[in-house]
C-alpha cells in the first residue's frame, strides 16, 4: 500500500475540512422574517436552507474525521496503513 498524503498534508487537510465544517455550522442559523402573506413560505425556505447547510457542514466534518482516522495508520507500518485506507475507502463509498 502506498502513501496517499504526506502526514502534515493530511493533517492540514483534516484541519481545513474541520474548519470549513465548523464555519458552516456557525453560519447555519438564520433569522426568521415576517413577510406578510408569504411568512409561512419564507419560514419554510429559511428552514430548508438551514437544513441543507447543516448537512453540508456534517459532510465536511465527516471528511475531516475520515482523514484523521487514517493518520495513525499512516504513520505506522504499511499493513496497518492498508487497514486505515480501507476504512477511508469504505467511508467515502458509503456517503452519497
Amino acid at each position, binding site marked *: 500500500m*502506498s502513501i*496517499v498524503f504526506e502526514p502534515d498534508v493530511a493533517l492540514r*487537510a483534516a484541519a*481545513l475540512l474541520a474548519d470549513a465544517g465548523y464555519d458552516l455550522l456557525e*453560519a447555519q442559523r438564520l433569522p426568521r422574517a415576517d*413577510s*406578510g402573506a408569504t411568512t409561512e413560505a*419564507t419560514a419554510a425556505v429559511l428552514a430548508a436552507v438551514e437544513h441543507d447547510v447543516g448537512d453540508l457542514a456534517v459532510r465536511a466534518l465527516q471528511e475531516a474525521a475520515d482523514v484523521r482516522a487514517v493518520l495513525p495508520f499512516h504513520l505506522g507500518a504499511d499493513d496497518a496503513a492498508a487497514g486505515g485506507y480501507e476504512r477511508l475507502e469504505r467511508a467515502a463509498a458509503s456517503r452519497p
Partner: protein
Amino acid sequence: MSVETALAADVGACREAAWALGRQAARVDDAARVVAHVAGRADETVDGSLQGRTAVAMHGSCRRLGADLGRQADAVQALADALADHARALQAVDDVLGRARGSARDAGLLVGTTVVPPTDPDDEQQARTWAAVVRVVGLAREHEQRADRAWLDAVGRYQGCAPVRLGAAPPTPPDDAGWPPPQGALPGGRGPRPQADGRDGAAPARPPRPPAPGVLTAPPLPAWPPPPPTPAWPPAGCPPVVTTPDVASPAAHVLALGTASARELGWG
C-alpha cells in the same frame, strides 16, 4: 367600507434575513474553496505508485462536497438577492401607504391606520381625498401581491417546486412614469425610513469564485465511487415554476404605479 393602510410584513426583518442569507452564502462559498483546495492537494500528493482507490475516494469525495457547496452558495445567494428585492418592494409599498395615510389624516379621514369614508356629504375635499386614497391603496396592494408572487417564485426555485400560489396577477398599470411621487410634494407626507445600520437591504457582495485549485485541471478520475446521479431539473412530479412574465423586478412594479393616482392626491 374602510381601507386598511398598514403593511402586514416586517420590512426590517425581511432585510435582516436577506442580509443573513447573503452572509451565509459567502461562508458556504468560502467552504467550497477550502474543500476544493483540499481536493487539489490530494491530487498533488498522490504517490506515483499508488494504485488509486484510496486517493480517488478522498479526491472524489472532496470534489463532490466542494461542488455541492458551490451549488448551495449560488442557490443561497440567489435567495438572498430575491429576499432583498422583496424587502425593497415592500418598503416602497409601505412608503406609498404611509403617504396615503398622511393625506387621509389631513382630510380627517384616518382612524388608527384605517381610512374611513367621509361623514360629511357636502365636503368635496374629503370626497376627493377618499376617492384618491382608495385608488392609491388599491394599487399599492396590487404591487404588494406582485412582490409576494415574485418572492414565492424565488422560494420555489430554491426548493425545486412552486410551493404556494397566490392567485391571478393583477393587471399591469398602463402608466409607469413618475411613481412614486417625489418626497415632500404632499404636506405632512412621510419621508423614507432611515436605516439605523446603514444597510439598504442588499445582500453583501460576493466576489466571483475563481476556478477551484486542482479541481478543474485535474485529470479525469475513474468512476469509483460512482458519482451520485444528477437530479433532473425540475424534478419529476413537481409542478413547474411559473414566473409571471411581468414580475422581473418587484421594485420596478412598485415604481410602475401610475402617475394619475399621484396627481389625484396632489403629489406630482
